[in-house]
């Protein structure tokens, strides 16, 4: 039986990060983009916890993960509010068409 080590965690988190990034880059729906962001954040959380468990950093990693969760919650709240406003303004949440900054 292979013992679960740091590498496994890192692989999982890398996948998570990759999926999250993929979602951010490819999805057109703003909600889905936000979900990708959450994936990326959680990939980071896994890294924190993994390094905390296998590294010599004490509980710093776990604490940081807790901060990130709080932060992610706050961020999700704000982001959803923004998405809601975008929807009110444009009538949709398609990020491809929200390119007014271009001009």
């Amino acid at each position, binding site marked *: 039986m292979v013992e679960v080590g740091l590498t496994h965690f890192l692989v999982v988190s890398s996948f998570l990060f990759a999926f999250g*990034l993929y979602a*951010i*880059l*490819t999805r057109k729906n703003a909600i889905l*983009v936000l979900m990708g962001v959450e994936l990326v954040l959680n990939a980071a959380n896994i890294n924190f916890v993994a390094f905390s468990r296998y590294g010599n950093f004490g509980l710093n990693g776990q604490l940081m993960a807790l901060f990130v969760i709080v932060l992610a919650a706050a961020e999700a709240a704000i982001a959803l509010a923004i998405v809601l406003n975008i929807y009110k303004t444009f009538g949709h949440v398609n*990020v*491809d068409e*929200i*390119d*007014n*900054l*271009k*001009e």
Partner: protein
Amino acid sequence: MSESNLISLAVTILFLPLVGFFIVLLFGKRFKHMYKLEVGIITVALFLSIYVGFVKLTNFVNDTIIYQFKWIDLGNVPSIGPLSINLGIMIDNVTVIMLFVVTLISALVHYFSIAYMENDPRFSRFFSYLGIFTFSMLGIVIADNLLMIYIFWELVGLSSYLLIGFWYEKKSASDASMKAFLTNRIGDIGMFIGILILYTNYHTFSFQEIFQHISNGFVPFGSNGWLTAAGILVFMGAVGKSAQVPLHVWLPDAMEGPTPVSALIHAATMVAAGVYLVARIFALLTADAMLVIAVIGALTSIFAATIALTQNDIKKVLAYSTVSQLGYMVMALGVGAYTFAFFHLVTHAFFKGLMFLGSGSVIHSMHHEQDMRNMGGLKKKMPITYVTFLIGTLAISGVPLTSGFLSKDGLLAGTWAFGNLTGHYLIPIIGFTVALMTAFYMFRLVIMTFHGEPRNQHKFDHAHESPKLMTIPLIILASLSIFIFYTPNPAAPADGWFYNWVKTPQTVVPEDARFNFMKSDVHNSESSTSTEVHGSGSENAVITHSEMYEHAMHHVHYPAMILSIVLASLGILFAFLMYHWKKINPDKLAEKLKPLYNLSYNKWYIDEIYSFLFIERLLDLSRFISWFDATVVDGIVNYSATFTRGVANVTGWFDTYVVDGLVNFTAFVSGFVGLSLRKMQTGKVQTYIVYVVFSVIIILLILRPF
């Protein structure tokens, strides 16, 4: 009455006419009677000069009063030392006499002009010009240095220009004023150079200081030749102003001015200035310079006299007689008869002023007729003018009991003495010949104008005696032409005051540059001679002339007197024979002596000769220069213009294509880069995130530790 008071009075006399000039010039147009101010001013100046003369001649008769002040301080000039230009005023007996003569003639001319110029549109302007003329002449008279004389000299030139060309609508008048001005300029160049020679050597313009230097044995550039040159060059100024040959041509033409102006110019002011200048520099004239002056004077006198014989214009005759008399004065100065030269200047000022004003009176009553051939018989119509004019004529002819007799006789005796002493007999011969001619042509003038039958009945009928304003000046001047004002004894001018007040200045030139008879004193021993030369400063310029000359003059005094009386009577007799009794027909005589007559009548063709020699050549030169200008200079200018245009075209092309090309290219590149970069700016968040991700990956790759 102190000396400084005299100085301030003299300055007042000097500046009064200038004040009149400015006020009348500025306000004359607005206030019709402004001319009275100028007339009043000149009258005040006249009385002041009489007063100054009286005080000077009674209290300070042997003093020369000098006041100097620093005008320009040139500071410390390298290799010379401290240098300054001083102006100053000198009052000696000559000055006060001249002050009186100038202001008197000027005042009388003013009065005369009130009537003569009555209907002239520029009436008050005429008076302001008279004012500046008087001012300039007075400046020359009281100056104590050459610079001041030069300044006022040029002012006289300017005011004569204004007055001669007063009727500038007449082409001949404006031409004459220009001619007078330019001819004078030629002489002034010489005068200027002469003054500079003296200044270069002595660093002063003052007569007294220059004489002092010369009497200390310091001659210009260490050579007597330069002293001679300086004397002759300064004399050149006098040649111009006093109308000596060869610069006499302006004076007859100057008759184009109003007749009172002619009187002022030819009697007391302008032409006297030249003689006065020579008298002022008399002490520094060397024997050679004096000989040149004497010869020029003699030539002028005979030359002008021959011309005056045949002229028909009353003013032209007077003009040439003026030239001739000026020649006399210059000649007398040249031979060393200083006192009589100056005496003649004064008496001539009066009787020539008288005759010019008299001719003005005639011209006025004949409605500006000047040709004597249209006159005649006027003595019944104009008795006062006739009698006064006759007195003037007698004076100029040298008839006894007149002032002219006294001065002319002394002057001729001076030339004769000079002839005896040096052997230059041509000068007295010319002098006496001129005396004969003068008597002849002056009586010719009187007879043609006043005697006989009227030749032009119409003009004669309209002739009338002039108003009192014109006759009273005539009467004053006529009485001044009588001997009693000058000497109690009509045969001996030496008894008179004039002879005592105007003494020949002691010459200051080195012994070896003097005439033999001018050597300081032949009777004294050699040692006393040298002390005399070095000791007798020129501050005291009244030391008598050399005894030898005085003696020689005394010796020929009576022969000269008798000869001049005989010659004058002969001249008068001829004039009566030809024009009054008509025993000799002048026309037939003229026919017989045709070439001589033509020569005289055409003024020796001098104007034509000058015109051919100088004016035509000058025009040729001008034409050549104009051609040169039109072809060569303009060619160069045009060529450079064309060349510049060519260069401009090239640079223009370069600018358009190269410089503008570069600029446009830069703009194009920026635009292009901007356009291409713009595509990256999609405004889509996701694109940006892709950039970020790839950038982070690239940075990580670059910063990777392995």
